[in-house]
């Protein structure tokens, strides 16, 4: 059965859900990913996304042991994401020299806690689903969350675009214009944290960070400004998500991994072309030195 036939088949609702998730997540990957890329906080976002496994493991353990019956993994994920974002934000602002150590510690300790809790959870819990995503896990509730979050992120980016742009481009100057750059940074981290939790059902927590950086990185080669980068990154993300899903369906491969490999291949190709073009321009400049 082709991917298109599967999407139209009423007996396969999970394929439609995956397609909708791919399209909805593109807005978040594009808009938020552009901010993460230009602010150069991909490492921070990576630490938050990996620490989320600790919360998922804890929630699964508590629910299975009957200590918190019915506690959904997403609740634990959200708690750990916000906690790690807060910790990283405070350390980044108040103790910059310790930032690297703390980020790596949160990254590794969060994941380890998750593995330990999952190992001690009665019954079977597959950490691979959370690490690399599983389109079978995408529910109607996830789609609603993605849609609501997308609307909120786009509205926030539109309303505070000048402040976001200036904080990312020249933080000190933005402060001299009265922008509370620390607040912009902390809110960005918090939104990244919540988005990671919502998006991990689609591509998994390991690969969320790839989708937050690859489409926006590719868009950065062609965009003339941050707004254009956000729009182009969203379109590219949608293309990679839908294309990756179709490819994974046809080849029977894990969808999250295919989406990320496709995004990575295009990013590397664009980087190569950019380097070639840069080298050619530089040679032409050397051959014909201009007056200025």
């Amino acid at each position: 059965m082709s991917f298109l036939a599967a999407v139209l088949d009423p007996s396969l609702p999970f394929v439609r859900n995956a397609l909708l998730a791919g399209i909805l997540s593109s807005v978040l990957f594009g808009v938020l990913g552009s901010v993460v890329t230009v602010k150069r906080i991909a490492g921070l976002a990576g630490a938050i996304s990996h620490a989320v496994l600790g919360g998922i493991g804890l929630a699964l353990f508590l629910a299975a042991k009957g200590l918190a019956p019915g506690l959904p993994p997403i609740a634990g994920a959200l708690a750990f994401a916000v906690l790690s974002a807060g910790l990283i934000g405070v350390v980044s602002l108040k103790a910059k020299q310790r930032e690297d150590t703390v980020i790596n510690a949160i990254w590794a300790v969060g994941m380890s806690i998750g593995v330990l809790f999952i190992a001690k959870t009665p019954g079977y819990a597959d950490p691979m689903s959370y690490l690399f995503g599983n389109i079978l896990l995408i529910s109607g509730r996830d789609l609603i969350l993605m849609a609501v979050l997308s609307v909120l992120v786009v509205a926030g980016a539109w309303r505070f675009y000048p402040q976001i742009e200036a904080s990312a481009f020249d933080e000190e100057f933005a402060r001299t214009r009265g922008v509370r750059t620390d607040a912009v940074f902390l809110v960005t981290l918090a939104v990244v944290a919540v988005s990671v939790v919502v998006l991990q059902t689609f591509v998994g927590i390991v690969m969320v960070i790839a989708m937050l950086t690859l489409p926006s990185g590719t868009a950065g080669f062609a965009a003339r400004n941050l707004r254009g980068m956000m729009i182009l990154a969203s379109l590219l993300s949608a293309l990679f998500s839908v294309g990756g899903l179709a490819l994974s369906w046809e080849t029977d491969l894990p969808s999250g991994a295919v989406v990320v490999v496709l995004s990575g291949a295009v990013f590397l190709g664009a980087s190569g072309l950019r380097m070639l073009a840069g080298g050619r321009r530089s040679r032409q400049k050397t051959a014909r030195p201009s007056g200025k």
Partner: protein
Amino acid sequence: MGDGMKESKDRVEAGPTPSTHVHGRPTAVRFDRVSFAYGIDPVLADVSFHIHEGEFAALIGPNGSGKTTILRLLLGLAAPSSGSIEVLGAPPHTALESLGYVPQNAAYDPAFPISVAEVVRMGRLRGGGGRYGPEDRRAVDAALAQADVTELRDRPYSALSGGQRRRVLVARALASNPRLLVLDEPTANMDAESEARLFRALGELKGKATVLVVTHDTLFVSDLTDAVLCVGERDGRPGSVVRHASVPVAHGLAPGTFGGGALQVLHDTEIPPEDCCGKGA
């Protein structure tokens, strides 16, 4: 260009904040017995100086003398451990709307996609939020003309030379029609043509706004300068500020062009604070 200058002049004349006065003249900047230390290392000790409104001032001193600290205090990016600071008659953080700032090394990411006009537009930024409007677009056009970079407006910022980037940052500072313009080492790594254009733009601003140029060149300053404030160790105390006299030098004697004439700083001639109504000697 004319419109931009007129707007700037109107802003000065209609300035809503009454400035404090020293010796009968309103002041744009006033440091009163200000001290500051990084941890236990004192950088400024009991520093007092003032700059009058409309003056073109140079804050000079060798690297590490405390110039950047004075600048950070003036911009409200740091708070003094003792003493008081007034900028345009108000605490620094409340005067930001009336202040234009050109940093020495603006954090600059070559991969950041942004045009010259968009960088200049940041000068119209409002901290409390809000998007840019038609008035901001007009102010950007005027600032581009004032800094003589109109022809660069649609170019990517990353495609500019160092000197062009510096003039764009001057335009960004002018976009807010500032009553006080602060420039940190504005001619560092700048070619002669860019330097001449920059000082031409500053010359047109002279008298309409207060200009403070910070530089590590302790021997010569532009002949636009009304007041030379020298930062350095004095009587064993770090970061003292004294007002020095200056005299014109013959063309070609000063290493920098300043886009026109230069003044030589007379480090052995101090102007007392109560006698600060014009150029030295």
